[in-house]
């Protein structure tokens, strides 16, 4: 293995961790609410801007921005749920309507970001000490390793939450059967609002991490992350959060390895190509079971 390939692999795991978080939240939301959040990428970018503002005006380190972004986004998400989602159930086709609704939301969010921060791309020039740490033959920036560590912690907490706590189990149960869980006495409205808010919170965290890992972000970078998130949830199976985690890392590695061997533009095509092939060959995703409707 050459240094280049190790580099690709390490970067793939780091970037893949972020993709996993994107997929995890989209998957959770689709599972519980049958809402495909087109605006997730814009939310994530909003998280990056939160880190940017906190750093450039208050000098706060991105690590301190993490909990702030998570909590503020959670609260906003809780409120947004009651404005946006309950009306959807009156539509003839709630799933497509939700897609359209969040499509509008994403355009509006990008426009708001554009109005506040203008079209220039931004970056946070916060640097950890030391700037990079050698791993075998390659040097990896500390910021990226920190991001990887945070990703690992968030994923572990989410896995523990989903499989070991009662609210987490309720979320998974709601994914499997939305009607039955109400018979057992779960307040589905509150649970849905919680799921919605939770994905907002994760989006905030992801955004801060993206500001650490990727060189720059702008008001319109969101769509790219939404699409990557879609690819990941389809690879992992819609409504299967753990599948999304694995698929995210898998996709990140594939993408970064492709940049090692192919031109940048072709590497992008590899990602989309993977989506198309997967969906045609195995529509339930790589690790998939199809969620009951």
């Amino acid at each position: 293995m050459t240094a280049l390939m190790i580099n690709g692999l390490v970067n793939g795991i780091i970037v893949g961790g972020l993709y996993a978080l994107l997929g995890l939240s989209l998957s959770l939301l689709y599972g519980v609410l049958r809402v495909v959040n087109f605006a997730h990428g814009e939310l994530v970018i909003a998280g990056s801007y939160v880190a940017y503002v906190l750093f450039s005006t208050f000098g706060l380190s991105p690590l301190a921005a993490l909990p702030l972004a998570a909590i503020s986004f959670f609260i906003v998400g809780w409120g947004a749920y009651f404005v946006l989602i309950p009306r959807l159930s009156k539509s003839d086709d709630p799933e497509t309507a939700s897609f359209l609704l969040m499509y509008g939301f994403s355009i509006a969010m990008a426009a708001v970001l554009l109005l506040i921060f203008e079209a220039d791309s931004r970056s946070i020039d916060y640097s950890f000490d030391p700037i990079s740490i050698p791993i075998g033959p390659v040097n990896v920036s500390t910021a990226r390793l920190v991001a990887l560590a945070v990703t690992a912690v968030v994923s572990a907490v989410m896995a523990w939450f989903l499989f070991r706590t009662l609210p987490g189990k309720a979320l998974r149960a709601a994914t499997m059967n939305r009607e039955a869980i109400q018979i057992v006495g779960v307040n589905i409205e509150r649970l849905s609002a919680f799921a919605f808010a939770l994905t907002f919170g994760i989006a905030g965290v992801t955004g801060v991490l993206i500001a650490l890992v990727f060189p720059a972000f702008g008001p319109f970078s969101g769509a790219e992350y939404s699409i990557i998130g879609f690819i990941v949830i389809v690879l992992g199976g819609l409504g299967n959060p753990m599948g999304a985690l694995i698929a995210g890392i898998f996709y990140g590695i594939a993408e970064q390895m492709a940049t090692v061997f192919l031109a940048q533009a072709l590497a992008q095509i590899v990602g989309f190509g993977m989506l198309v092939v997967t969906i045609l060959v195995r529509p339930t995703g790589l690790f998939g079971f199809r969620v009951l409707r």
Partner: protein
Amino acid sequence: MLSHTRSQQDREHGDKIFWRLAATLGVIVTTYFALVPYFGLNIAFHFYMMMWITMATAFNISSGFSGYMPFGYVAFYGIGAFTTAILVKKLGWSVIAAVPMAGVAGVILSLLFAPTLRLSGIYFAIVSLALAAICRLIITNLPEEWTGGSFGLQLGSRAEPLNAFFLMMGVMLLAIASVLWMSRSRLGKALKAVRDDPEAASMMGVNIGWIRLKGWMLAAFFPALCGGVEAWYTNVVDTETAFNTLVTTKTVIYAVAGGLGTVTGPIVGAIAMSWIDELVWRRFPLVNLLILGVAVMALVLFLPRGIVGSVLRARPRWRRFIP
């Protein structure tokens, strides 16, 4: 027996009103747009209004009649624009010969995408989005002597805005006529049947795959023509504008605003939203995008069936007459 003939009479009566309304609509639309250049109205504004009417109408074939939401609709538009530009600029074709080939290119692309028709709902929408991104990436990476690279292709001295205007009008009328015919034909009814219940439609002898493919090809044909005519009108084609996702966005919004599944819906929606867009753009250029986004959300939340759809829901009996 008596009731049978009566219902038949009733239906013939309804049909008569339907076709009269359709003819009136056609005459009004044709006259209005045909007179635009002679009264010195804003040609650019009306050109794009006709283009959005065509795009929304064709989108309706896929989303309204067949139940597929192609969120990568811009792919057909872009391929049409590039086909026209390459044929005219590199092979020296005349524009009038190149534009129909753009339509053919759109249909060929739709055949390549045809395997995705076995997906449904959100899966289809996501894959369509990805396919449009792939098309854009492929065209961006083609050799520069074909696509002009980031500068795009200029059609040179061939700009004839007025002729492009009338060609666009022809394309629009063709699109409206096709959907009008379709809504009353076996194809339209079969498409709706397959959309609502594929198994039942299959039991009744409808060839599901073939019917879906027909609807899909028709839905791809018109945006490709639009791309070609627009290339002629603006005289320049590049990947940034030809594959701009805003094309899909506007098409979807305009069609949904009017109401999917009716012939008049997308027309009404495109006209109304073009005006709103124009007025907002003139007064508040900065918040235009924001208003566009909020408009989509408001539409989905408060008017999910669109303008015409809501009217028909309030007056279900009109369904027989209104195209």
